[in-house]
């Protein structure tokens, strides 16, 4: 046992010591550092394409793919890219994958392509992807990057679905194209229009703030009690 313990760290020790791959690497993108609800990154597609669930899902999957692919390449090339021109390199890598996604979606479904419009090509300037490349992929090994990028991608997709389902349900009375409410339902057209996007996002942010405050308040009370007790 002792020999194993001694040999293991030297056998796979990278240049900089890396924290072990935990569940947290994956989960932080979904809840604690959710790109949309916590970090407020990549807002443009979040609001623009979420007027139906299908659009939201397609956008989320496309962004996740670009996140994974560009993360892989940046992580593999991280020792070869010169520091001074790294941002330009990342952008070219991202733009390449976005072009691929653009053509693939066009081939699969032209309706979807027309519904998403220029926002597929605008994935290039989505801050989440460049931010992950700069802050994570360029400093971590491939498995770490893949796990983290998939967490972030899923977090982003969930956020898009949160908005898309509410907006489609209230604005059109349907969910994924199926009618949910009866004929009596008067659709809230405003939810499908631009202001609706802002309002629904605002409500979700309020909701998450409320949860966070509720979770923190018992802790704060306990601290207060301790302080007063002393």
């Amino acid at each position, binding site marked *: 046992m002792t020999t194993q313990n001694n040999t293991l760290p030297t056998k796979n020790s990278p240049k900089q010591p890396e924290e072990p791959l935990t569940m947290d690497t994956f989960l932080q993108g979904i809840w604690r550092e959710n790109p949309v609800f916590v970090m407020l*990154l990549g807002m443009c597609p979040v609001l623009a394409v979420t007027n139906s669930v299908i659009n939201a899902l397609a956008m989320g999957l496309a962004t996740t793919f670009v996140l994974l692919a560009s993360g892989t390449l940046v992580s593999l090339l991280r020792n070869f890219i010169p520091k001074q021109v790294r941002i330009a390199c990342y952008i070219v890598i991202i733009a390449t994958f976005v072009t691929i996604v653009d053509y693939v979606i066009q081939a699969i479904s032209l309706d979807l392509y027309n519904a998403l419009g220029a926002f597929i090509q605008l994935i*290039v300037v989505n801050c989440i992807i460049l931010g992950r490349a700069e802050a994570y992929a360029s400093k971590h090994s491939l498995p770490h990057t893949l796990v983290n990028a998939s967490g972030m991608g899923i977090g982003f997709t969930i956020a898009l679905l949160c908005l898309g389902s509410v907006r489609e349900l209230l604005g059109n009375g349907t969910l994924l194209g199926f009618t949910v409410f009866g004929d009596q339902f008067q659709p809230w057209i405003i939810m499908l229009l631009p202001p609706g996007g802002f309002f629904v996002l605002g409500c979700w942010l309020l909701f998450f703030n409320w949860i966070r405050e509720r979770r923190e308040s018992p802790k704060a009370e306990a601290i207060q009690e301790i302080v007063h007790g002393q």
Partner: protein
Amino acid sequence: MGNESLSFVFLNALIVNNFVLSLFLGLCPFLGVSGKLNTALPMGIATMLVMLVSSMCAYFINMLLVSFDIEFLRLISYIAVIASAVQLVEMSMKKFSPTLFRALGIFLPLITTNCAILGLALFQTFREYNFLQSLVYSLGAGGGFVIAIVLMASLRERLEFSKVPSVSQGAALTVMLAGLLSLIFMGFAGLGSS
């Protein structure tokens, strides 16, 4: 689509289809830099300049790409043009107004990832605008961005002094405010179609 009158193109980009409030482009600086009026205005003007330069360059680059039949390189070349345009504006601002340059700081290079600029270049390509139309379109879009960010900054400056519930502090309230602004701009919707 290529035969719209210049005034229509301008008004359409400036108010009716405002880039920030009805097309959702460039929301990151809109939410991020709109805290104070005296940084929001220079930011808006810098973005407008970059829009103007990059839209002109994008027009000629697209002509070049079409003539060589290599349109799949459009996205990459547009991004390269925008990055250089941002560099250009940054350098000239450093020379002519160092105080402003320092005030904007990190937000200046971040204009590169402002989707309003790439969006502008892509839209003018899709709609097949000619040179003059592209010029007017970029002016309108830049002006619209300035209007939106200045309105937002003025509102947020007044909001600083008002009492709001702790749950709604920060981003949630800002987004709600943007929704109200967007609702107001929707009132102009009939203007463009005539």
